[in-house]
């Protein structure tokens, strides 16, 4: 829990109603290509059939970055 990811550039800001996945433009530092992925966040113990909450992260090769 509380995983810390590197953050490049300003964080997303809401513009109005609705949302969209992050673009991940210049969110992975110098690493390319940088693409949005769903990442499960492990909240600690959970029952076997429970799903994990998911968040968006920007992925470049095997590294994840904050959108």
């Amino acid at each position, binding site marked *: 829990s*509380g995983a*810390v990811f590197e953050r490049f550039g300003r964080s997303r800001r809401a513009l109005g109603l609705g949302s*969209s996945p992050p673009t991940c433009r210049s969110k992975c530092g110098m690493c390319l290509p940088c693409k949005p992925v769903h990442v499960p966040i492990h909240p600690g113990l959970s029952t076997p059939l429970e799903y994990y909450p998911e968040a968006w992260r920007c992925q470049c090769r095997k590294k994840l970055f904050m959108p």
Partner: protein
Amino acid sequence: ALLCPIASPLNDEGKALMSIKASFSNVVNVLLDWDDVHNQDFCSWRGVFCYNASLSVLTLNLSNLNLGGEISPAIGDLRNLQYIDLQGNKLTGQIPDEIGNCASLVHLDLSDNLLFGDIPFSISKLKQLELLNLKNNQLTGPIPSTLTQIPNLKTLDLARNQITGEIPRLLYWNEVLQYLGLRGNSLTGTLSPDVCQLTGLWYFDVRGNNLTGTIPESIGNCTSFEILDISYNQITGEIPYNIGFLQVATLSLQGNRLTGQIPEVIGLMQALAVLDLSENELVGPIPPILGNLSYTGKLYLHGNKLTGPVPPELGNMSKLSYLQLNDNKLVGQIPSELGKLEQLFELNLANNELEGPIPPNISFCVALNQFNVHGNRLNGSIPLGLRNLDSLTYLNLSANSFKGRIPLELGHIINLDTLDLSRNNFSGPVPASIGDLEHLLTLNLSGNHLDGSLPAGFGNLRSILIIDMSMNNLSGSIPPEFGQLQNIFSLILNNNKLHGKIPDELTNCFSLATLNVSYNNLSGAVPLMRNFSRFLPDSFIGNPLLCGNWLGSICGPYMAK
């Protein structure tokens, strides 16, 4: 050479470490090198890291070592300590107040232990603290409101304790906090509108507490949140329109008492990966605009009071892997557009009021693992294309009005562990190919109009636990091959037209705990050996020519031995 090195006494920090060791238990093999007699260089001890060229402890990492006992108050003497990780042990007792003396502490992880008592207020003296992880303990009492005095706290994880009282409102006035994990406690009170003052927070999780009141109208201001989990509380009222301003990837509102309709604006929240509104009291239709959620993988709307049709637009949710709409009041047909969902893993439409056939296009859902339409008003026959669903493990078509023959092709869905076709109008013979389903655990074909005989090939169902073929028109005799079923614990064959003897081979089914062959035309004598001694006459009544140990049997009751 000296046998014993000249002992220069340990400094205060070394003594503190020895006190810490003394209050632990199970240290024998784990802290072998914590030994002030043979090695006074405590900076070299397991889990201890010091500043270069000084004798001051910087880090104490003793995670996952199965340590018992308590955390010594002497930990407060390690004045330069920046990092404590004691997670995953069996530490008990209270968190010592003296921990507040470790003024340089940045990281404090005591998670996954057996600590009890209150969270000490002294923690708020740790002005450098960035991470406080106390999850999975047995802590009680309130969240200290003084935690708000820690200016750099980024992660606060108190999940899975027995913490009571309200979430201190001041906690929300924090621009630094990124992660707030409070799930699995006994917190009360309401969700304050101030929660959106957490402008740096991405993880908000209060799942499984006793929170009441409504979702604040201003929830849409929480634009930094990526995960909003307020599930399994007692939240009432409607889902506010402003929720549409959220940027979340996970919206978990299930297991509350939310009323009103699903706001259409949710269909604009394309960043949603998981949308869970299940187990509430929501009414009205499923908004077709939800089909716009083309990045959503999990959609749970089950256990509400939703009406109207299953929108065909849901077929546009191309990333969908879980779709659970069961236990609502949905009407109309299953839209064939669902066949476009190539990543769909689970489709649950059970316990609605759906009509019409299963659309043949369902066979294009090639990833489908579980398909449940139990308890609707569906009719027509089983589409032959279902045999293409190689990944299917769970197929439940029970309690509908399906008719026609059971296609022998079902025997080709080799990964099935559950096949439930009960309480329909299926007719014709039971295909022998069902006997090829070697992974099958549950086979329920009861309550149909099936005729012909029981396939001897069922003896090959080596994993089977339950066979229920009751309430059909099955004839012929019980195949002796059933005696090969070593795991079966329930064999239900009542209310058919079975005749002949009960094969002695059934006494080889050691696991068999429930047998019902009542109301058939069986004859001969009931076997007396092994497992059969445990079956009561109820298992056999209604077979006038069967001889057994009950009153009124043609040859009974037996004499006592």
